[in-house]
């Protein structure tokens, strides 16, 4: 046959050529698929080149001054470069920005250091408490540092502190609530259900308003916590209620035989929960926990409605400088990138945890 020769050639060719063909088949297998592939490819190239033109080729970078932007047709990165300090740290006193920067680094290092399961020892909780104390001291001052009131805090450290504190305090509270909801003591159970359902029934915005506007009407000045603390409290109880429901799903999935076996060995209630039930329950709900935590990371931006300067509000504030052409797309892309980095690295981390757990049990 005529194509025997070409068959031989094809067989002689490297096997990757054939596997490449097989992989291309879904894209070009039918005329419709081929047409769709070509159209989408063309669109990607067109949009891609537009994006490259705008973001790179025609973009304004240095010197980071308004004139550079005025002269360029593309993105005004000069603004982001010139204003990065203000976007990242908001209205924090410029002379003290190193402290805010240090806080961000400290939080991120602690997060990364706690990521490996081998680091999960009782000492880790102490490290976290220590880290939180140092963060508050660096941000707020006192003990040798110039004091900076929370009303002057802003930008990335505010976002990080709100996220880490709200989840760091909300998670243990969520564990207690989830256990409480399954408790055999009616009072504990009723209170847990009441708390969880009330908080879940309210939008976070209304919780923040209650914390920042209504609370001052009921509490005397002397008893009233700082506005930052009030917003943090609202975020924490919101996180606690949602995480508690996620955890409850995990607790329900653990067969009753597990706690019976633990109790039959003489372990008390708390040891049983801590050593047997929670480790299994948490592992089961890692995907749902990840989801809730990522939502919480982004939820922190809502504090801008009660007048706190998180990353997004400080970006907006930077944009109001009349000397610049106010390139909001670039600014929000920059902020979006930071959020993305936070949420994405957390999602990868959760994925790693889930897989390392699955491997172990074979």
């Amino acid at each position, binding site marked *: 046959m005529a194509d025997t020769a070409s068959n031989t050639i094809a067989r002689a060719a490297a096997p990757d050529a054939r596997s490449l063909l097989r992989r291309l088949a879904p894209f070009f297998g039918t005329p419709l698929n081929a047409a769709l592939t070509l159209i989408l490819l063309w669109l990607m190239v067109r949009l891609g080149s537009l994006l490259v033109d705008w973001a790179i080729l025609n973009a304004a970078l240095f010197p980071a001054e308004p004139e550079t932007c005025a002269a360029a047709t593309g993105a005004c990165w000069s603004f982001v470069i010139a204003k990065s300090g203000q976007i990242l740290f908001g209205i924090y006193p410029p002379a003290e920005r190193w402290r805010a920067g240090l806080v961000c680094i400290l939080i991120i290092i602690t997060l990364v250091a706690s990521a490996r399961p081998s680091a999960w020892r009782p000492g880790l909780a102490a490290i976290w408490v220590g880290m939180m104390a140092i963060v508050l001291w660096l941000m707020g001052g006192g003990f040798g540092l110039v004091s900076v009131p929370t009303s002057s805090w802003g930008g990335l450290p505010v976002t990080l502190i709100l996220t880490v504190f709200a989840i760091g305090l909300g998670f243990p509270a969520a564990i207690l609530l989830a256990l409480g909801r399954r408790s055999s003591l009616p009072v504990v159970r009723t209170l847990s259900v009441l708390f969880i359902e009330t908080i879940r029934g309210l939008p976070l915005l209304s919780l923040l308003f209650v914390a920042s506007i209504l609370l001052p009407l009921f509490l005397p000045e002397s008893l009233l916590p700082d506005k930052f603390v009030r917003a943090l409290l609202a975020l924490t109880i919101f996180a606690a209620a949602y995480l508690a429901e996620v955890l409850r799903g995990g607790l329900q999935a653990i067969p009753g035989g597990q706690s019976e076996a633990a109790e*039959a*060995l003489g372990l*008390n209630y708390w040891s049983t929960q801590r050593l047997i039930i929670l480790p299994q329950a948490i592992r089961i709900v890692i995907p749902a926990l990840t989801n809730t935590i990522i939502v919480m990371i982004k939820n922190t931006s809502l504090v801008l409605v009660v007048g706190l300067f998180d990353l997004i509000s400080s970006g907006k504030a930077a944009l109001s400088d009349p000397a610049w052409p106010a390139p909001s797309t670039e600014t929000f892309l920059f902020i979006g990138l930071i959020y993305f980095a936070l949420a994405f690295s957390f999602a990868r981390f959760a994925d790693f945890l889930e897989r390392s757990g699955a491997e172990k049990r074979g």
Partner: protein
Amino acid sequence: MNDGEKLSDRAPAIRIENLGKSFGDFQVLRNVNLTVCQGEKIVVCGPSGSGKSTLIRSINRLEQHQSGRIVVEGTELTNDLKGIEKIRSEVGMVFQHFNLFPHLTILENCTLAPIWVRKLPREEAEEIAMHFLRKVRIPEQADKYPGQLSGGQQQRVAIARALCMKPRIMLFDEPTSALDPEMIKEVLDTMIELANEGMTMVCVTHEMGFAQAVADRVVFMDGGQIIEENEPVAFFSSPRSERTKLFLSQILGH
């Protein structure tokens, strides 16, 4: 066994008097009396739903009784948590479905309670664990996870895990009924070995060969009551009650 007379002279390990228990309106145990002496081996049998599990789970208070008394090693079971934890650390229990902790290795399953309840140092707990894992003949599986073991191996780990607490009494709730036939023997052999070493045992099982080999007494339950108890030879050869006869014909007939 033939030293039955001597057994009853010793102090009772478990004394159950007029035990009553119900779930809601449903009376599961009524007026159960049973005394187990030190070193005695009791086999409990009876039809499904007769209250066998409920009875032995009451002995370490996995079930709470409503009337009557249970005294284990001289401590009465009441709502006092300290007493319950003390009894639980001296009474080992093996379940039908093993109930190993899947997130812990075999070794960790065995060292957990010695470390957290007995407060032993880790090295000592591991030594004890390896001793009992050798005894149930699976020391080489120590670093695996329960999910990687066969049912028979898992049940032997469960026995080792209970033994690591150095219990004075062992409770077994149908330890072989979730196992494939070829694995039953390895678990029964382990239990027979334990019995020969003088452990006090209360065992719910329908393995009548096991009952004949090791039991000092066989207890037959039906409808939440003890219908009949006797030495194994007499129990099997000349059951007194009609219900016992029927039950025996059913399980021995198959």
